[in-house]
């Protein structure tokens, strides 16, 4: 890989002592807070209501916004379908960003769009001078996060991703990358992979799902929210069942066959490879075709189990190892709202990038101290948002964090040798509100 200045800087962080990293990251967090507080209306509004001003508060938890709410908050303003109301969506979007979106261009939008994908493309086109790239979450909850990045933050995500797979997994240029995901999608990890491989001119690269995955298709397939009126009836009664069946009967056999063909091609050429995909999809692959991958190859799962699945992650990993010749099988943890990913080492721990100030919070949103603590993972990423957004977020994922930012004692080392912050064991997605009594979430 050709080392770029950004990747050199990021890689330098891996070599810094943890106390030095912490000071740098906290200073940068204070600068970023002030910068975004002055420019980002949504951030300022939330923090002002909490009683926070432009100076860094003693309690850093007050800077954290819930990732699951922030980029879905358009739903509270305009409902679930931004494409129906571009005129209302654009002020929301402008409020989320720390760079100005020229208001005079709002009139260039159509009154409404047939799909969210068409609307998001038009935003990227109309603001092409800003290099906006809009990514989304998979939207399995019925409401997709809509997150804006620009050229600088996309480049950063790419560098962060490829630096980390080099440092953590030893994935080097020359290895084939086989992504069991569509090339055309806004889902963050797949989009980052696509940008990264193009940007770095990585070869060979395969995307084995031959169908685009637009936010609209993902929403209808998930079946959690449908358009109002006749369009919704069409989606609910016809498209959703059709897409579910088509996925199983048409799409899945096709992308499994394509993936196997790619793997065979690499094996025939004696080329090491990294195969990356969703755990359920990769599990499906392992069950239809066993193939011994070249030594030094890796199978990586990402995205977690989005829907109920009859097998546990442990089962899936065991089947993947059995099917692909005992290669390394590991997981990557990330989310649309984060411009980084955490990579699992051979000891089952997820290593967070060293430029993050990662913490966990308790049920009352207090940051927990100590060398190891369990709570909702939160992070302060002073570089991830660039000039666009303040990336200080609380996730909806419960994790056991080791060497978190609130701990300044001697770090606990992972058996893999890393002394930075890492997540020990499984990461559990929790609903915003857990069930305690007989009260319902409807």
């Amino acid at each position: 890989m050709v080392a770029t200045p950004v990747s050199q800087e990021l890689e330098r962080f891996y070599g810094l002592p943890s106390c030095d990293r912490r000071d740098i990251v906290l200073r940068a967090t204070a600068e970023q807070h002030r910068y975004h507080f002055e420019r980002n209306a949504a951030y300022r509004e939330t923090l002002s209501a909490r009683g926070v001003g432009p100076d860094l508060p003693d309690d850093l938890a007050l800077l954290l916004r819930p990732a699951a709410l922030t980029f879905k908050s358009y739903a509270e303003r305009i409902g679930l379908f931004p494409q129906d109301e571009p005129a209302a969506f654009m002020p929301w979007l402008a409020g989320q960003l720390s760079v100005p979106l020229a208001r005079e261009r709002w009139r260039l939008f159509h009154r409404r769009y047939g799909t969210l994908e068409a609307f998001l493309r038009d935003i990227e086109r109309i603001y092409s001078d800003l290099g906006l790239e809009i990514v989304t979450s998979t939207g399995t909850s019925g409401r997709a996060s809509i997150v804006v990045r620009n050229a600088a933050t996309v480049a950063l995500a790419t560098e962060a991703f490829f630096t980390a797979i080099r440092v953590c997994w030893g994935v080097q240029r020359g290895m084939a990358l086989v992504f069991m995901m569509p090339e055309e999608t806004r889902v963050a990890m797949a989009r980052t992979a696509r940008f990264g491989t193009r940007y770095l001119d990585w070869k060979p690269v395969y995307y084995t799902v031959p169908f685009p995955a637009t936010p609209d298709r993902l929403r209808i397939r998930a079946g959690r929210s449908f358009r109002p009126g006749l369009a919704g009836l069409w989606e609910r009664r016809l498209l959703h069942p059709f897409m579910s069946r088509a996925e199983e009967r048409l799409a899945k056999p096709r992308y499994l066959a394509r993936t196997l063909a790619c793997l065979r091609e690499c094996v025939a050429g004696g080329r090491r490879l990294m195969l990356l995909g969703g755990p359920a999809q990769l599990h499906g692959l392992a069950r239809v075709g066993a193939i011994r991958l070249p030594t030094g190859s890796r199978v990586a799962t990402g995205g977690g189990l989005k829907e109920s699945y009859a097998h546990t992650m442990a089962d899936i990993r065991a089947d993947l190892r059995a099917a692909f010749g005992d290669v390394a099988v590991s997981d990557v943890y990330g989310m649309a709202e984060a411009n980084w990913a955490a990579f699992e080492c051979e000891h089952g721990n997820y290593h967070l990038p060293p430029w993050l100030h990662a913490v966990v919070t308790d049920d009352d949103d207090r940051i927990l101290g100590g060398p190891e603590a369990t709570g909702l993972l939160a992070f302060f990423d002073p570089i991830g948002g660039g000039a666009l957004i303040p990336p200080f977020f609380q996730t909806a994922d419960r994790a056991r964090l080791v060497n978190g930012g609130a701990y300044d004692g001697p770090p606990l080392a992972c058996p893999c040798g890393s002394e930075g912050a890492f997540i020990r064991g499984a990461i559990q997605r929790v609903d915003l509100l857990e069930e305690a009594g007989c009260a319902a979430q409807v």
Partner: protein
Amino acid sequence: MLSQSPLPHDGFWLPAGVRESALAGAEWQTLYLKGGTLAGRDEPGAVAVRWPQLTPGGWQALLDGLQRGRRLGTGEVLARWQTALVLVRECLLARLEEMLPLLAAATGYSRPMIATALWQGEFVSPGSLAAAFSFRPTWSLARRWEPLPGLSGYARFFPAHALNRLTAPARTGLPLYRLAPPVELALGYGAGNVPGTALLIALLGGLANYAREGLPSAAVLVRNSRHEPLFAPWVLDAIEEIDPELVGGLAVLIWDHDDVELQATLMRRAGLLLGVAGDEALAALEAQRRRFAPNLRFHRHGHKVSFAALHCSAAEAQTLAETAALDSALWDQNGCLSARVHFVQGDAEAYAGALAEAMATLASELPRGTTPRRYVHRAFDTYAALQGTRRVRLFSGYDSDFAVVLDERPWPGQALQRAANACQGRVIVVRPVSEALEVPRLLAALPAANLQTVSVALPRAELLDFAEGVGERGVTAVRPLGRAAFPQLAYSWDGLLPLDAAYLRPAGHFTTVELDAPPAPR
């Protein structure tokens, strides 16, 4: 039993007559509870609770013993329960100081809240259950509201099937209920960390044969919640001292409901299945029922949401808010009866302000428990971001013990759903309405099966029209404001419970209006 000793507390209850034989050879499981969830052994303040894992022989001895313990005739069971419940209340009050700390530590609810909810309610008021059993509803209830005899209130039945709705006029006067087959064993499942669920199941299950004179009352076996297993054994211990025959056929245990073999055995022996649990747990029970005992009668109570609706002038705001606050504060809105969105016709702003004051008072008088403060923070953030619309106003701070929000925005289709879901952990959205009958229209956006109570302060003349509207949407109970957390068993929850335990009826739901005094005739 109630000492602060490090020995585990019993999280099960067996009648004295079967205790020894059922427990022979049993292995013991000890778990640690704190804040309504399972905790680690070394967690400071965690309460150790134990229960037995019976051997197959132990199960057999238990089931046989429960049958032998069914000594009470149906004619006397209700009167004996009522007497016992009055006496047991005094008995428990005397031990309150010992019980409250343990219950508070295990469930995560504050001591004053538990004391208020459990000892000031009128869950089973003397005479009300007998009155409920004397009610003989006819099909006319599918067409109009009728008074509940002996009770202060009205009932209405909403048939689920269109054919029944269409043919109801032709059947006016015919009985709505028919006698259920005799029940030897009622099997119950409870969940959650709100105390009392297992007792409710035990009481109702025991009344399953109430309508069959000459038969003994049903034996009852309850699978209790791991998250609150303490309260029922304490009450049953006390009742056994007062009237051992009353509980001779009753057992409360915890077992693994994934134990397919055991579940099959129990379901095949049972004549009535009662489930008070989350929707997923009920679906799992239903799947087992279909597999093992398809003819087993299943009465279920799943996840629910409740609301408040009131007329409020500026002059009434303080009084109404003080009453309504109780409906939302108790159990920190973890209860199915907890009011979430408060619909206000009149001066909603004055009401929201007064409600915030009332919630602040309750925060010190009935402090919140360990329910995550995160819920309040999320609601605060969500609505703080909407204050720029000038149609949303927050009446509480980020670190308040509660959140009160006035939301006057136009509400698109799913807005009520989002608001209702945000209202947990002492979060209240105050929603102005132009008239009370706007409420049923708004509730149409929610799944009918999840609707429970609307606590109301409405003019008497509007009450039955309002109840008709919300009843059609799926609401099962309309209660006076401030009484949401103190339901009476004689009125409808998810059915007219006493009658539903002993009789069969067409699919559908009841809605009852519970009153302090009867409304004006229509």
